[in-house]
């Protein structure tokens, strides 16, 4: 058994939270820059220029690129040959979030009850933590700070199998049309198809963590991603919803086997500030 200290987990999560808020992944930045080359609308170009300037400024000044530093989604893969010592893993992650948001001067945006007592917890905890046990003796931690502007525009549909691929595409396109300028386009579209209702939402969120623009390894889904991206960019929404040709930067589809009677689909959106950092311990 390889031992990994809970304190190391905390320090890692803290650092990832602070880095993610200020340092946009270069794959996302490259897609925004490519979007600027394609964009024709004057307001679209204006928006993309400001966005790219902001990305660079945030990186240099270690300032959050967006004031919504998100609710912290954490994907953890724990190798079954690894043992967490000196503390509780969930608490170690939340302590990392607490420290990262305090020391990084990040906004605390979590309220303790969704309906009755919407009081800010003051430290951005708890995070939304997804754990998975995997082979090996490593621990992989991915931090995705998820802003609400884009998260609010996600949607789930329990499609009927008879709706087929066209039904799935229509639901995805309709979701983007409904979202319009709200989720801070250009967006990255995460799609989860299959499993159960809960499984497809998790797949969609995992799809957002994929390297931006990388196609699904299955050629049928890769083709579907490319077709959807083209159709979305014909909707005219454009950067910030001001009208234009660049509404989405990428469509990522993740799938899972499902029930004979089901075809669940989840669409989750990430704004252009598609923040993501990971570490392997």
């Amino acid at each position, binding site marked *: 058994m390889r031992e990994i200290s809970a304190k190391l987990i905390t320090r890692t999560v803290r650092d990832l939270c602070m880095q993610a808020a200020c340092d946009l992944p270069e794959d996302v930045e490259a897609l925004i820059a490519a979007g600027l080359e394609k964009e024709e609308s004057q307001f679209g170009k204006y928006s993309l220029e400001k966005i790219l300037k902001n990305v660079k400024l945030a990186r240099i000044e270690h300032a959050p690129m967006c*004031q919504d530093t998100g609710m912290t989604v954490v994907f953890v893969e724990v190798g079954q040959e690894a043992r967490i010592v000196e503390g509780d893993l969930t608490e170690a992650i939340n302590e990392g979030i607490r420290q990262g948001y305090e020391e990084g001067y990040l906004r605390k945006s979590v309220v303790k009850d969704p309906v009755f007592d919407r009081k800010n917890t003051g430290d951005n905890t708890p995070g939304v933590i997804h754990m998975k046990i995997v082979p090996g003796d490593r621990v992989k931690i991915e931090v995705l700070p998820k802003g609400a502007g884009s998260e609010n525009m996600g949607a789930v549909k329990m499609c009927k199998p008879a709706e087929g691929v066209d039904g799935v595409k229509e639901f995805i396109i309709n979701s983007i049309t409904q979202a319009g300028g709200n989720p801070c386009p250009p967006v990255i579209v995460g799609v989860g198809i299959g499993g159960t209702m809960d499984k497809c939402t998790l797949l969609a969120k995992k799809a957002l963590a994929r390297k931006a623009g990388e196609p699904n390894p299955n050629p049928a889904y890769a083709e579907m991603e490319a077709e959807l991206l083209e159709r979305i960019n014909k909707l005219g929404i454009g950067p910030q919803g001001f009208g234009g040709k660049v509404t989405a930067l990428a469509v990522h589809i993740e799938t899972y086997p499902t029930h004979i009677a089901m075809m669940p689909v989840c669409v989750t959106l990430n704004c252009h500030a598609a923040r993501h950092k990971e570490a392997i311990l």
Partner: protein
Amino acid sequence: MTNIKKLSTPLTFDQIKDLKAGDQVTITGVIYSARDAAHKNMVDALKENKPLPIDVEGQIIYYAGPTPAKPGKVIGSCGPTTSGRMDAFSPEMMEQGLKGMIGKGPRSKAVIDSMKKNGAVYFAAIGGAAALIADTIKKVDIVAYEELGPEAIRRMEVKDYPCIVAVDSEGNDLYQIGVEKYRVEV
């Protein structure tokens, strides 16, 4: 977009009438940040016939909740939040004299109708360009609802804050005009 209109607060009737959807502007003067919880508190106060914590007559509300200021800075990153969540509250604020709103994303028909009736304007800033925008905010004071943390109402002195007229006082809506222009039927 070469001709940038320079605005100063509070907005005057003549300034507002001159603004058209798609105009690029900069704002200098005082604006007030308020978002979800602050709006709910204010509208609740009005229902109970209590005064608002700020006089909104002729003022601009900025839908924003900043990150904490680092030492030596007046504010952290401070871009606009999604305005649509304030749609339920905005008409009542305009009835109280509010003349300008800054946020991001489209507004409801009810808000646009109220803007036409009350002669108000909606400005869009670039969502997610929060570090860049923060440089235009020169002084910040919390003036109400301090307990709300990032959602407290802040009085902000801004200089050349950049934004675009998204919906003008005649109801012209850049979000509709722009999207129609670039939509390709398939």
